[in-house]
């Protein structure tokens, strides 16, 4: 394996970030509540990166992302609750199982529905999300352990900040490596013009299914971590509104920008929790108004999203082209 200068920079920065966060924690400058919010922001980042692959890079509109997040959460949660009892290897195995299960279901439903055009795809994934939500609500009738509409508790809370941070970091690297490879090029070609991609020799169905499966598996992985960090799983945490959250993050960050997705995901979670304090208990429901307003204003002022397809330079592999103009080199996607 050849480590590029950029990979070294990313590694060093991640290490610095980790040390800073840990020292702030050690100095007790942040209370457990905000530590929980921080962990949540990293978990949401992993899930949002999944939708970024599906929608931002491949152009496949999905309104059912939270369903896969929920499937991962319940799968990992129930495995560890029944058999793992918080033993570390079992915890890791259970979140991998959650990711695999979400990916498997994505494959099964992706094969037929990814043949649809984007707007119909949105409806089909929305339908799938509702099916999963209703199934969760009634799951106790099939298997009482799952708790149904009353929710499920009892999963060992063993996902520490360290584990979540390392996994989020690894996933960012893997997604970046995927995007900047022949696979990523196939995905963006499909997003730009599916017919032209087909005529240029790309097996579009295969590429779309692959992006969808990987994206949903990331959601499942995020769900598995969530189940091990928050003691109570409830179907309403994985409904249509949650899918909408992921969609907002990807669109606000800018389609086709990993950087945008990551930054927006973290900011979004902190914003939602921050508003809880700013608004006070009586006005908490106004959060919905404020975040809808943010969306409307962003779309009017900056329809291409905050990052507009641009990437942080360290994510983009350097290609030296003798005689090429340089100024646009960091511009992977523009609008």
């Amino acid at each position, binding site marked *: *394996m*050849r480590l590029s200068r950029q990979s070294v920079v990313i590694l060093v920065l991640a290490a610095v970030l980790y040390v800073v966060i840990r020292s702030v924690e050690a100095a007790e400058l942040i209370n457990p509540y905000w530590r929980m919010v921080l962990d949540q922001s990293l978990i949401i980042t992993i899930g949002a990166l999944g939708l970024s692959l599906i929608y931002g890079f491949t152009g496949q509109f999905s309104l059912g992302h939270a369903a896969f997040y929920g499937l991962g959460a319940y799968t990992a949660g129930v495995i560890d609750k029944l058999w793992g009892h918080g033993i570390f290897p079992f915890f890791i195995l259970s979140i991998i199982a959650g990711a695999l299960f979400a990916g498997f279901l994505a494959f099964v439903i992706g094969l037929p529905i990814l043949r649809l055009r984007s707007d119909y795809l949105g409806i089909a994934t929305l339908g799938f999300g509702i099916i999963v939500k209703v199934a969760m609500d009634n799951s106790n009738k099939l298997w009482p352990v799952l708790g149904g509409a009353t929710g499920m508790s009892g999963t060992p809370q063993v996902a520490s900040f360290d584990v979540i941070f390392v996994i989020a970091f690894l996933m960012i690297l*893997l997604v970046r*490596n*995927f995007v900047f*490879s*022949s*696979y990523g*090029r*196939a995905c*963006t*070609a499909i997003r*730009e*013009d599916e*017919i*032209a*991609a*087909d*005529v*240029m*020799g*790309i*097996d*579009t169905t295969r590429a779309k299914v*692959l992006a969808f499966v990987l994206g949903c598996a990331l959601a499942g992985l995020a769900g598995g971590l969530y189940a091990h960090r928050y003691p109570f799983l409830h179907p309403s945490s994985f409904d249509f509104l949650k899918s909408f959250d992921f969609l907002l993050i990807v669109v606000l960050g800018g389609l*086709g920008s990993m950087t945008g997705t990551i930054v927006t995901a973290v900011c979004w979670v902190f914003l939602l929790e921050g508003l809880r304090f700013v608004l006070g208990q009586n006005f908490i429901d106004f959060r919905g108004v404020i975040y809808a307003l943010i969306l409307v204003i962003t779309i009017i002022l900056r329809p291409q999203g905050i990052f507009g*397809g641009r990437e942080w330079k360290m994510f983009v592999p350097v*290609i030296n*082209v*003798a*005689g*090429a*103009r*340089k100024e*646009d*080199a960091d*511009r*992977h*996607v*523009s*609008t």
Partner: protein
Amino acid sequence: MSVLKIEGLSKYFGGLKAVNNFHLTLEAGEIVGLIGPNGAGKTTVFNLITGLYPPTAGTIQFLGEDITGLAPYKVMRKGIARTFQNIRLFKNNTVLDNVRVVFNHRIRYNLFDAMLRTPRFSREEDAVTAEALEILGVLNLTERALDTAGSLPYGAQRRLEIARALAGKPRLLLLDEPAAGMNPAEVARMVELVRFVKERFDLTVLVIEHQMGLVMNLCERIVVMDFGQIIAEGPPAEIRHNPQVLEAYLGKGVTVA
């Protein structure tokens, strides 16, 4: 053996016979023009050859192999590349990536090589990048390699479409109105370019065009379509004076001055 052999090809959209009993044989190294008034069915023929539409009837043979009804990406992998009348580049991707993506089906590294950046990944990526840059060099696009395709001026976008088609190492190149919207000087350059890439990449070329200057200069043989059918076929000099062709383009009762 002929490069392309089309027999009895038809495509009906409901009652509309977009292409009706079309036939065409291309020998290796030929440049053939496909002309006809708007709506004559020329682009439909391209869409049938490249697999975008399944034909209603007829067969298409490429290098002796039946490719009728094959999916577009499979047709391309056999060695047929095309450009589009209304430019269809991957606009938000870089010029380089527009070309590199065409190499995808030849790439042998797998998902794990890509995710873990193995030596095999680096080796193949470097090779693909070098080859793509070579093609961009031939078409004089090196300077813009790292810009987005959508930011190129019109003429350069046309050239990039050809570069992208060539990246697939085709035997047969289908050009759909490569000189649309160009002025006479640009058309002349396009004629030179098509001749040049034909020799350099050892191609057979089928070109749809409305610019008579280009067709008459470039093509050794011309096929004229009207209402989905072939109405004339022959060398440019003959086609120029064919009464049926004049009638199709200009209407009845026109004589050659």
